[in-house]
């Protein structure tokens, strides 16, 4: 009950006129920027970060909560009306949502996405209220070895579970860790990788890294391959839903929430898997399975709810353990660090007012979002028609501004360009970007925990496995890394040729590289299946079947794979 009184106090803070105004501005800006094509929630948050510099901590976090939810809502609008998923987590929304829009049911698709996001966000934030203090009570007793193990776990999870290639994920992680090294060593004060440049002594600002990777990298990548000609957008009226739509939507909302929140809350994060799972579940349970692939409202309601619930779930490891597991969470940590606030179990003890005001403002932001965005949707849809040269020139403009304003250092712009080029290369060669930023943020913390653990044990490495949580984490990591290759090896010995070897690039417009990749050295991960669902049915099937055998530690894999093969025959209707 103590939580509830703290939460009420948080509401009292969040509902002052000034703070409501901040929330309002945040929601509007977040939606406006998030709705722009090619800008995902992470980029929205990174680009708008400078706006919060001048505010006090509470005000800026409140505005931030608005930007966060606004950015996500904007992203789903884009996926539905333009079929441009800003982030891999809204790929699934685009599947049915864009079909609905094309069939003249855009208003209903937007409505079920908006109301579903509201329902899921509210329930999941309420779950956060109860789960977070519980995790804090456990986390507070954990020592350095457990923290170290959890960070290693988060690293392995973001670099090998998501994406299709383990080698590329781990390479990204290592690059991120190297970027994190730059600056003075926290323990001894000795400069590392500063190349004699005193401005680098404080390390590279995480905001600069985030803006570089998500804004500059993306803008350069798109600029190099810009599709010329007018983009096709679908005009839309004010979102509304009929009785039948409500009847078909409310269960998927709740199921999506139930699927999304736990996935966000475990520090292996990512909204890709839960949105995909939700899609598969809705398709199985639907009374109108034949509508899937042609614009089934359940296929928007469920995944959108799962997306938002998992975004709220992400805040559990972020606030209680200081572990960011999605790109947006990584940028949020950067925002916290601006104020010298380091999320973790102690945060709830040292800054209870701040934490609970933030949580309360999540509720507020969510409600504002619903109230504002239903009537404003036709206006947001107009933003989709912004000419691309202005759009991407604007991204470069604001990214440069953001990097410069993050310390008023011109050197930041040079670093911005360097890391932005890295972001370009990553996109060119299919290296995931998330491990880079997570590595850069968590690397220094991981080193601190490692050194602390060894300091206490006087150098005995056995200390690293001296706590049960650490042992569990390492066991899971080993299963993650060893099982899939082992199973593949066993299957090869048994003479079963992985179906991925059948043909590279089969399938229509998709790249089809997932199938090439799957057969070479690193396959598996449900994600290959989820992100490619839209593009190639061939890679979809084989990624799924490879996985069927791997039975990763994540037990939910099983449920996704048993449904996937039957999905595959439908997926060829998802031609873009």
């Amino acid at each position, binding site marked *: 009950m103590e939580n509830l009184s703290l939460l009420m106090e948080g509401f009292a803070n969040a509902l002052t006129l000034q703070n409501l105004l901040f929330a309002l501005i945040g929601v509007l800006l977040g939606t406006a920027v998030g709705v722009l*094509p090619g800008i995902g929630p992470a980029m929205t948050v990174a680009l708008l970060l400078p706006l919060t510099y001048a505010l006090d901590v509470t005000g800026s976090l409140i505005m931030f909560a608005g930007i966060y939810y606004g950015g996500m809502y904007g992203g789903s609008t884009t996926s539905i009306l333009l079929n441009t998923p800003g982030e891999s987590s809204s790929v699934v929304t685009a599947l049915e949502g864009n079909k609905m829009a094309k069939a003249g049911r855009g208003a209903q698709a937007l409505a079920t996405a908006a109301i579903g996001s509201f329902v899921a966000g509210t329930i999941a934030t309420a779950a956060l209220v109860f789960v977070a203090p519980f995790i804090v009570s456990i986390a507070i007793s954990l020592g350095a070895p457990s923290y170290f193990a959890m960070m290693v776990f988060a690293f392995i999870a973001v670099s090998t579970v998501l994406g299709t290639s383990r080698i590329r994920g781990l390479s990204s992680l290592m690059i991120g860790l190297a970027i994190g090294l730059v600056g003075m060593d926290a323990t001894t004060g000795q400069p590392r990788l500063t190349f004699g440049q005193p401005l680098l002594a404080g390390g590279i600002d995480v905001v600069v890294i985030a803006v570089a990777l998500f804004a500059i990298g993306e803008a350069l990548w798109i600029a190099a391959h810009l599709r010329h000609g007018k983009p096709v957008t679908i005009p839309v009226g004010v979102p509304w839903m009929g009785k039948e739509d409500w009847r078909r939507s409310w269960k998927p909302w709740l199921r999506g929430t139930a699927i999304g929140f736990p996935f966000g809350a475990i520090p292996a994060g990512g909204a890709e898997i839960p949105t995909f799972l939700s899609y598969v579940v809705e398709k199985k349970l639907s009374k109108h399975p034949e509508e899937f692939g042609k614009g089934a409202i359940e296929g928007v309601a469920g995944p959108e709810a799962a997306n938002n619930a998992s975004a709220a779930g992400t805040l559990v490891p972020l606030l209680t353990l200081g572990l960011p597991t999605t790109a947006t969470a990584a940028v949020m940590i950067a925002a916290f660090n601006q104020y010298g606030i380091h999320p973790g179990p102690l945060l709830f003890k040292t800054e209870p007012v701040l934490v609970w005001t933030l949580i309360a403002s999540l509720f507020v932001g969510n409600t504002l979002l619903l109230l504002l965005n239903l009537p404003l949707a036709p206006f947001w849809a107009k933003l989709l028609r912004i000419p691309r040269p202005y759009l991407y020139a604007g991204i470069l403009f604001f990214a440069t501004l953001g990097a410069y304003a993050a310390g008023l250092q011109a050197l930041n712009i040079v670093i911005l360009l360097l890391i932005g080029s890295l972001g370009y290369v990553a996109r060119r060669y299919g290296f995931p970007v998330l491990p880079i930023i997570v590595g850069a943020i968590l690397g220094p913390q991981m080193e601190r925990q490692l050194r602390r653990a060894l300091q206490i044990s006087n150098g005995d490495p056995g200390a690293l496995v001296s706590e049960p949580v650490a042992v569990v984490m390492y066991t899971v990591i080993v299963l993650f890394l060893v099982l899939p290759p082992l199973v593949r090896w066993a299957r090869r010995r048994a003479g079963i040729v992985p179906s991925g070897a059948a043909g590279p690039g089969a399938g229509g417009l998709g790249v089809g590289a997932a199938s090439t990749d799957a057969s070479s050295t690193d396959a598996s991960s449900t994600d290959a299946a989820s992100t490619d669902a839209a593009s190639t049915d061939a890679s979809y099937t084989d990624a799924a079947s490879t996985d069927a055998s791997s039975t990763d530690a994540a037990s939910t894999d099983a449920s996704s794979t048993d449904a996937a093969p039957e999905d595959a025959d439908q997926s060829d209707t998802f031609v873009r």
Partner: protein
Amino acid sequence: MTGVTTPSTLMRGRSELGVAALLGALAAVVAVDAANIRHTAVSTGVMGPQVVPFLIAAGLALCAIALTVNVLRGGHGHPEEGEDIDLTTGAHWPTLLGLGALILAAAFTMEPLGFVITSAILFYGSTLLLGSRHYVWGLLIGIALAVATFYGFVLGLGIPLPAGLLTGIL
């Protein structure tokens, strides 16, 4: 997957070796830097400031090797897709290099010329490089955007962006 090598996949596979080389180079830089960290009384504790950099350098080197092997065996990552992205043509290098040059120029002109001039040029130049043919509109939007942002930051947020050449005018 080693069997299928059309010229285009061969090229793609080869260019990714450059990424492996980048990883290797980064490993060398990190390792050399770590080796040059001076030993002091403080750093002789259980674990000095060199240990983690050496581990990361080793990790980078291992990734470089693994990636090389992967690429030589025919593996390759797939480029990111998007609605505004047309992957049927190769990268348009003049645009890319031009944008890079504009950003780099912004770093050097931000303080002497000031935010407004630098950012307006950055915006206008970018629209032209990205294929806009609205020569006057692009310039006007760039100037308006830069001036509005300048005042918004300086007056609204209290963040002192440099006025540069226009000091006294703005």
